[in-house]
């Protein structure tokens, strides 16, 4: 029997679809993001050339992945950045905690990082009496409300300003209720400034790590990323091992693709390139910089020639913005850190098909994600591959939990189908039966999920085979 997924996906979807406010917020947000991207990539030919270049650069990085990671490590260490390796998320969490503890502090300021979400770093630190304060405005809002991001670029995309006004009023002491967005932003600025000034440790993600120079590159608009990586004495950066690129000259095209795809910007307010901790004569900047490089399944994903394309991803989130399923259910319904199309291919590979394979079913395979992906990941093909892997037989499984959906009934049905098509008599009889009974597909049992929302197909009385025999083929 198929293993039950580790979360109630169907329930999540039902609740999301019934949430009118959520759907209104999402519709508005997605329309804006799609339109902004289209405006910034107004030259189609140039965009296609740029996407091909982005794909080639990331493929080249994968083709030399172990070498580039060694080079990145060597150059970072040479520059004074300490490099740590973690096989899985708990190990990465422990490394961060050890660094924080070695400085005797109980709070860190944090810039937005999806890999830290993947690690559930905030929860881990909280369990060990360290407060991790999110400083990106969107992240700050949802952290106040005890939520997680619902979008990998715009974490509070599911909230409107009235909801934010409520959250600030309730959760930040002495804060009057206001729906004025400028006022709300000013409140966050005021609260967080004090924390930036006081923080001893800052945590950030990494958008690209350049092996050639040992440089960590971060993009952002608000300045909180620069604050977290500049004001405290210690900077801890966390990244998935697929973030490495070979050369500094690989950065400009990827950067253009990233900011254009993510938010429709030519460039973000800040592109922050960090190559070393504070040097001898320098007056500010962290005295220590640590880089935690996380595997968490990535080296395994690399092994499969088709599925490894998942690792090309630069986390721009544009596949979410263009996904008809994401648009209707939002990010939380997916029940995991990475929602939308990229989540449908990444999460089952990380968590196992038995636990998260159901995500790969939540697609109409419309192909929009593949059309917009800045590095040309063929997401729909990978979704179909993962669906197939759920039914894979044999001992060799490409994905953890492979074959989890195989079950006796379906295997028997397909075996029967095979026999029917091998034996002419059985074939004739079954076609007859389909013609007579096919119009009455039962709205119960395993077929119900399909038939309860769709018009049943009408079966012809006679098969094409029979009609051809009787009437011949009119050849014009």
């Amino acid at each position, binding site marked *: 029997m198929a293993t039950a997924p580790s979360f109630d996906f169907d329930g999540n979807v039902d609740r999301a679809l019934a949430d009118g406010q959520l759907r209104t917020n999402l519709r508005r947000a997605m329309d804006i993001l799609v339109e902004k991207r289209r405006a910034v990539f107004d030259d189609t030919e140039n965009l296609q050339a740029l996407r091909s270049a982005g794909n080639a650069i990331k493929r080249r990085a994968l083709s030399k992945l172990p070498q580039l990671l060694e080079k990145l490590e060597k150059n970072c260490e040479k520059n004074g950045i300490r490099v740590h390796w973690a*096989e899985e998320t708990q190990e990465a969490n422990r490394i961060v905690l050890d660094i924080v503890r070695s400085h005797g502090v109980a709070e860190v300021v944090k810039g937005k990082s999806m890999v830290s979400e993947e690690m559930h770093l905030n929860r881990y630190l909280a369990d060990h009496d360290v407060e991790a304060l999110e400083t990106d405005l969107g992240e700050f809002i949802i952290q106040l409300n005890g939520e997680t991001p619902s979008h990998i670029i715009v974490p509070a995309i599911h909230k409107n300003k009235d909801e934010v006004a409520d959250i600030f009023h309730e959760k930040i002491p002495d804060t009057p209720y206001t729906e004025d967005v400028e006022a709300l932003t000013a409140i966050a600025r005021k609260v967080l400034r004090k924390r930036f000034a006081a923080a001893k440790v800052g945590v950030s993600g990494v958008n690209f790590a350049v092996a050639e120079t040992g440089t960590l590159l971060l993009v952002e608009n608000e*300045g909180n990323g620069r604050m977290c990586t500049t004001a405290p004495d210690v900077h801890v950066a966390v990244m998935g091992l697929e973030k490495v690129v070979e050369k500094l000259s690989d950065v400009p095209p990827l950067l253009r693709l990233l900011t254009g795809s993510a938010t429709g910007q030519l460039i973000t307010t800040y592109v922050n390139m960090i190559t070393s901790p504070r040097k001898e004569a320098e*007056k500010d900047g962290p005295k220590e910089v640590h880089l935690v490089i996380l595997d968490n399944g990535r080296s395994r994903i690399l092994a499969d020639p088709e599925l490894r394309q998942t690792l090309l991803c630069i986390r721009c989130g544009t596949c979410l913005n263009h996904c008809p399923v994401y648009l209707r259910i939002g990010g939380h319904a997916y029940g995991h850190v990475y929602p939308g199309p990229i989540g449908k291919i990444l999460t089952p590979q990380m968590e196992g098909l038995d636990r998260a394979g159901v995500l790969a079913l939540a697609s109409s395979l419309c192909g929009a994600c593949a059309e917009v992906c800045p590095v040309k990941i063929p997401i729909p093909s990978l979704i179909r591959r993962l669906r197939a892997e759920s039914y894979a037989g044999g001992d060799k499984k490409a994905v953890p939990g492979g074959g989890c959906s195989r079950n006796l009934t379906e295997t028997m049905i397909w075996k029967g189908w095979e026999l029917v098509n091998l034996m002419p008599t059985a074939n004739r009889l079954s076609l007859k039966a389909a013609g007579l009974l096919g119009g009455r597909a039962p709205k119960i049992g395993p077929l119900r999920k399909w038939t309860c929302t769709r018009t049943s197909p009408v079966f012809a009385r006679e098969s094409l085979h029979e009609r051809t025999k009787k009437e011949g083929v009119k050849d014009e």
Partner: protein
Amino acid sequence: MSSGARERIFARLHATDTGTIEVPKVDVPPLAASGKEENLERLQQLMTAMRTEVHLTDRGSWTDRLVELAAEKQWKSLLYGPDSPIGSELTAAWDSIGKALPELVPYDGTVDTFKERLFSSIDAGITGAKGAVADTGAIILWPTPAEPRLMSLVPPVHIAVLDADRIYGSFAEAMEADGWAKQMPTNALLISGPSKTADIEFTLVFGVHGPKEMVVIIRK
């Protein structure tokens, strides 16, 4: 423990023959070559669109413009790097003008001795710019010991002084021309305007955690 993790990760990575991964031969689409005037114009246009104030001045008179701005915006304190290339010009200009000017505050100690003042009572910070990128509209900053990193981040206003002949067509061109790959500094930045957010209902608000205002003085 951690070194064991490293070995195991690399063992798995090396188990895949990554060399067989097909890498398409694709060149990054070239940018149309642009002249100096075009670059200057595009930089001005794009940065202004992102709410940066751009002022064009002569090489010799930029401090006059700065003094006008200081009066207009009523800055009371201006953070500067006394040992920076623009430092001596600033002090000379301040010395020669008798009237009330914002206090020139030198960033001359380490941040550890200066953080409280920096975060609480500085109105504006002024730095040089290493260059600029026309096609996306951003200045390039390489903070130095003379002009530390926080100068362009913490004060509510950041003023960058840029020489017009340091404007490049693209980021790629700037990196190539200045040989970045051979000499990356502690921190390098592209800055396209004042800090901003659109995290609440996509309403664009300027001045989140970084400067609320950005001024670029371009010296021709």
